[in-house]
């Protein structure tokens, strides 16, 4: 039972990544694309943590930790750059 529910959850996260990539391709302005990368990084953190459970290895949680720290830095730098102007 729990296995089936986890598979449904993975499929939902799958479609969430698909929607984010569609917004990245379609997006009219640069800010739209940056919002897409922000959302996708959070979704990827969840996906890596969930995969650490599925494969049963604790080490993968560290990757999610590093990810959560560094993706934020890139988004913040891009926002500051766009605000100041070239």
């Amino acid at each position, binding site marked *: 039972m*729990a296995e089936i529910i986890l598979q449904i959850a993975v499929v939902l996260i799958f479609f969430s990544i698909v929607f*984010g990539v569609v917004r990245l391709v379609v997006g009219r302005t640069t800010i*739209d694309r940056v*919002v897409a990368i922000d959302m996708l990084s959070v979704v990827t953190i969840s996906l890596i943590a969930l995969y650490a459970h599925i494969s049963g290895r604790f080490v993968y949680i560290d990757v999610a930790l590093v990810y*959560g720290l560094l993706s934020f830095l890139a*988004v*913040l730098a891009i*926002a500051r750059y*766009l*605000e100041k102007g070239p």
Partner: protein
Amino acid sequence: MSELIGSIVILVGAFFLFSAGVGLLRMPDVFTRIQAGTKASTLGNILVLAGLGIYHPGWSLKLLIIAYFVLMTNPLSSHALSRAAHSIRTPMARTTVVDALRDENDASAAKGSS
């Protein structure tokens, strides 16, 4: 029993992540997209991590640190993005009612020039 509860919490979190994607695709302009993406993905991420914590109580301290980082950094990046979008004059949706920030900036610019 704890397996079932944990997997249901993870499913609810995945549903919130899915609706973040749908909101990113359907909303009319940049600011509403930022709101939909940020809020739903933050709660979805916290729920997925909480479900994993119910599965494995030994992991819960590190999961708590990840949840804390996301909870601190996600509003900050959404705030910086929306401020940048407003300062480079990204067009807003057609149904927008009021824009107090642009009024304020115009008023201070007029006062400075005269």
